C-alpha cells in the first residue's frame, strides 16, 4: 500500500521534527540555546529563529496536555492555586503544567523562557497569561500590539505601526535575549521558505474542494497546520514536510480516496461541512469519530486559520520581510472582525460545496466564541444551508458532554439529510 507508506512519511517527519525540537529545548541547559515563549496567532517564528532562539508555544503545550489526558490534573492544580473556574482553560492547563515541573508534551522538561514575546492579536487573556508567566519566571517581556481589523481591512498606518514596533522594540529585545545581531538577509531566506511551505499548505487545504475530499480540513487539518503554526515556519524541515504532505494528498485525489479517520479510511462521504471554532482536545478522537460515524467530512474550517489566512492569498514576502510579518499578524483569523468572518464562512460554504455549517463554541475562548450565534444566523440567512451549534471546551474535560454533543450532531446530520431528501423529491416532482 503505497498510500499508507506515503502517509507515514509526512507524519513521521512531523513527529521527528517535534521530537528534535523538544529535545533541543530539554538540552538547552547544557547547550546554552535560548528559548522564547510566544503565542500562535500573530507568531513571529521566522524572526525568533533569525536569532537562533527556540520558540515555545504555551497554547500548543496546553492542547497537547489535553490530548494526553493531563489537562484535568493541571487545571485542578491551577484552580487550587486560586484560578477560578471561569478562567481560560489553556491558561490554567499551562499554569498547572508549569507548577508540575514544566514537563512538555514529549515527556521532557521545558526550559524557563529567556524572553516572553507577546504578540497581542486581540486576545486579552494572552496578556494576562504572560503576566502570570512573567511573575513566575521574572524574565524580560516584550509586547507587539497588533491592531484589530475593526473595519475589515489593513491600512498602511496599521502596517507601519507594527513595523515600527518590530524595529524599535521586538528586534532589540530579541538581540538582547540572544546576544546576536538581526540578520535581514537570513530573514529574507526564511521568508522564501515560509512562502514555499505556505503554497503547499494552501494547496492541501484547497484539495478539499474535490469530491470526495481527500482530507478532513478540521480534525486532519490541525495536524497539517502543526509545523507552520508552531516552531517551524521558515525552516527547511517545514518546506520538506509540506512538500511531502502535498504529494500524499495529491495521490489520494488521483485515487479518489477520502480522508483517513481514527477508524480508518472513510468509505463514503455523506456530508460535507464547514466548521467554525477550535476543536475539543480532551475528547479529540471521540469528537472526530462522531463526525466519521455519520460519514461527515469537514471540508473547511476557520480554526486552521488561527495562525494565518493563507488561503486568501497572503504569503510571507522576502522582498518586504518586516511589512509582510506585519500583514501576517494582522491577518490571523481571530483578528478579523465579525462581518469578515461571516464572509469567510460563506465563501467556504460555496467554495467547498458544503452541506452546512457547524459552530463549535468553546467556553474558554471569547476571541472565538463572542458573536458566534450572530454569525451562525447570518450564514444561515445568506446561504440557506442548515447550521448547527455545539458547545464544549478546549482542554477542560468537564465541559465535554459526549451524549449531548453526539445527540446534537446526529440531529444535525439527520436534519441535513431530511432537507436534502425533501429538496430532491421536490425537484423530482417538478421534473415530472
Amino acid at each position, binding site marked *: 500500500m503505497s498510500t499508507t507508506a506515503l502517509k507515514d512519511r509526512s507524519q513521521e517527519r512531523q513527529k521527528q521534527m517535534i521530537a528534535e525540537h523538544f529535545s533541543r529545548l530539554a538540552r538547552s541547559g547544557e547547550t546554552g540555546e535560548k528559548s522564547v515563549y510566544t503565542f500562535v496567532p500573530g507568531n513571529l517564528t521566522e524572526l525568533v529563529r533569525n536569532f537562533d532562539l527556540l520558540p515555545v508555544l504555551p497554547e500548543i503545550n496546553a492542547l497537547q496536555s489535553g490530548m494526553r489526558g493531563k489537562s484535568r490534573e493541571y487545571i485542578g492544580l491551577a484552580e487550587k492555586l486560586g484560578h477560578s473556574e471561569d478562567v481560560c482553560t489553556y491558561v490554567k492547563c499551562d499554569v498547572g503544567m508549569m507548577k508540575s515541573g514544566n514537563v512538555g508534551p514529549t515527556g521532557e522538561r521545558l526550559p524557563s523562557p529567556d524572553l516572553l514575546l507577546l504578540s497581542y492579536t486581540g486576545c486579552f487573556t494572552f496578556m494576562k497569561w504572560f503576566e502570570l508567566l512573567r511573575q513566575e519566571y521574572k524574565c524580560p517581556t516584550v509586547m507587539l500590539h497588533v491592531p484589530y481589523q475593526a473595519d475589515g481591512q489593513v491600512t498602511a498606518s496599521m502596517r507601519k505601526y507594527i513595523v515600527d514596533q518590530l524595529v524599535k522594540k521586538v528586534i532589540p529585545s530579541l538581540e538582547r535575549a540572544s546576544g546576536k545581531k538581526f540578520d535581514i538577509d537570513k530573514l529574507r531566506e526564511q521568508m522564501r521558505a515560509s512562502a514555499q511551505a505556505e503554497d503547499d499548505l494552501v494547496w492541501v487545504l484547497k484539495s478539499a474542494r474535490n469530491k470526495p475530499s481527500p482530507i478532513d480540513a478540521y480534525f486532519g487539518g490541525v495536524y497539517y497546520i502543526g509545523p507552520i503554526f508552531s516552531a517551524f515556519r521558515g525552516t527547511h524541515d517545514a518546506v520538506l514536510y509540506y512538500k511531502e504532505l502535498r504529494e500524499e494528498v495529491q495521490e489520494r485525489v488521483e485515487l479518489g480516496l477520502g480522508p483517513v479517520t481514527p477508524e480508518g479510511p472513510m468509505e463514503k462521504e455523506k456530508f460535507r461541512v464547514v466548521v467554525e471554532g477550535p476543536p475539543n482536545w480532551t475528547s479529540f478522537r471521540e469528537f472526530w469519530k462522531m463526525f466519521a460515524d455519520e460519514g461527515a467530512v469537514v471540508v473547511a474550517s476557520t480554526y486552521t486559520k488561527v495562525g494565518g489566512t493563507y488561503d486568501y492569498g497572503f504569503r510571507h514576502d522576502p522582498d518586504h520581510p518586516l511589512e509582510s510579518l506585519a500583514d501576517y499578524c494582522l491577518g490571523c483569523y481571530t483578528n478579523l472582525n465579525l462581518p469578515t468572518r461571516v464572509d469567510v464562512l460563506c465563501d467556504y460554504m460555496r467554495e467547498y460545496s458544503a452541506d452546512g455549517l457547524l459552530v463549535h463554541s468553546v467556553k474558554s475562548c471569547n476571541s472565538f466564541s463572542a458573536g458566534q450565534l450572530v454569525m451562525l444566523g447570518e450564514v444561515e440567512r445568506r446561504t440557506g444551508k442548515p447550521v448547527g451549534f455545539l458547545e464544549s471546551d478546549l482542554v477542560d474535560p468537564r465541559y465535554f458532554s459526549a451524549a*449531548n454533543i453526539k445527540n446534537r450532531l446526529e440531529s444535525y446530520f439527520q*436534519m441535513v439529510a431530511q432537507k436534502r431528501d*425533501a429538496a430532491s423529491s421536490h425537484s423530482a416532482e417538478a421534473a415530472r
Partner: protein
Amino acid sequence: MKYTVGIDLGSTTTKAVVLDDESKILGRGITNSRSNYKVACDVALGEALNSARFGLIDAELERAGVDAARRTLWLEDFDRHFREQQYRLSLRRLGETLGRHAREEADARIVVPLIDDVISAMTAETRELFSAGANRKSDFFRDLAGSRYLPIAEGFSEQRGARFDRVAGLFDKAILEVENATSDDEMFSKLARAALVEASGATRELREAVERAADIELEQACCVGTGYGRATLPFPKEWIRSEILCHGLGAHAMFPDTRTVLDIGGQDTKAIQVDDEGIVTSFQMNDRCAAGCGRYLGYIADEMNLGLHELGPMACKSKRNVKINSTCTVFAGAELRERLSLGEKREDILAGLHRAIILRAMSLLARSGGVKSEFTFTGGVARNPAAVEALRKLIFENYGEMKLNISTESIFTGALGAALFAHREARKMQAQKVPA
C-alpha cells in the same frame, strides 16, 4: 393487521405510539420503567398495543352501529375495569415477588405473613381505587402501589415489631421486577375477559366487539426509536431518529401549521423550527447542563413533598412575583428553603421557579431563530399549567400575539414523530418488495 410503532426512550418515561396502515393513531403507551431500555421499550409497546386494541374495539362498535356517545361511555367504563384487572394482576405478581424476597430475610417468620397481609389489604382497596370517578394519583403501578404499600406496611410493622426500613426495602427490590413484566396478546384477552366479567353493565355489542378486537392479529411492520436511549435499541441505524426530527414531525402531525416547537423534557430542552412539511430547519438544545428541564420540577416536587402534577396548580395561585435566578437543580433545594425562611409563600416561589425555567427556554428559542406562529409546546412540562402560563406571557411580551398549541397528548409528540417515520420506512420497504 399491520402496524408501525414509534418509541421515544426519554430520561424519565418511555413512550410508544402505534399507527395503522393509514398512519392513523391506533394507540399510545407510556411507562416509567427505567431499569433498562429494552424492557422499557417492551413495556411501553405492550401498553400501546393494549390501547390500540381499545381503538379496534371502538371501530368494531362503530361498525355495529353504536353511536359515538354510547361508545365513549362504554369504553370508559371498560377501560376502568381493564385497568383494575391489570392492577390486580400486578398486585398478585408483587405479592409473589415480595414473598420470595421476604423468605430470605432474617426475620422471615414475621415478615412473610406481614407482606401477605399488606397485599391483602391493598387488594381489598382495589375496587374503590378504580371505582367510577375515583381520583388516582398516577397511572403507573409503581406510584399507585407504592403510595399504598408504604403506609400500610408501616402500620403493620409497628404493630408486629418488624423493621419497617427492611419491609420498605423489599418493595424497592420487588417493584423493579413487577413493573418490567411485559404484556402480550394473550394477556390482553385474559384481562379483557376478566374485565368483562366484572363490568356488569357490559352490553352484548361490547362483549362481541372485545372478542373480535382481541382476535385481530397485530403484526409489526416497522419500529423507529428516538430519545436519549435510542442508541441502545436493537434497531438498525436507519430505524433510529434523533428526537429533534421526531418532535418536529410529531408536532407538525398534531398541528400542521406549526412553525416553532418548544419541547421541555426530563433532561433537555429543545427549540425547533419546522417548515410546512414538518421538516426541521434549525434547532437549539440546552448544553451539557440540564438546569431548568423537567427533572428540575421533579426535584422541587420532592423537596416540597408534592406530586409532580400538583406543582403547576399550586404555582397558578401565586399573587406575587418572586424572582428566581438559578435554575440549577442542585441549588434548587437550597434556594427554595432560603425563600421559605424569608417568609415567601410556596405558591409565589413556585411561580418564580416556573418562570425561571421558561426564561431559559426563551433564550434557546431566540437562538434557534425566534418564535413564529403557530407555536407548539410539547414534552412532559407542557402538561404543567404554570409553565404554560409563564410561557404564554413571555411569548406575548417578546413576540406578540401568537397561536399557542398544546395537545393533551403532548408527551407523546416524539413517539408520534418516530411512528410516522416508521410508517414511511414501512412504505419504502413495501415499495421495494412490490415493484410498481
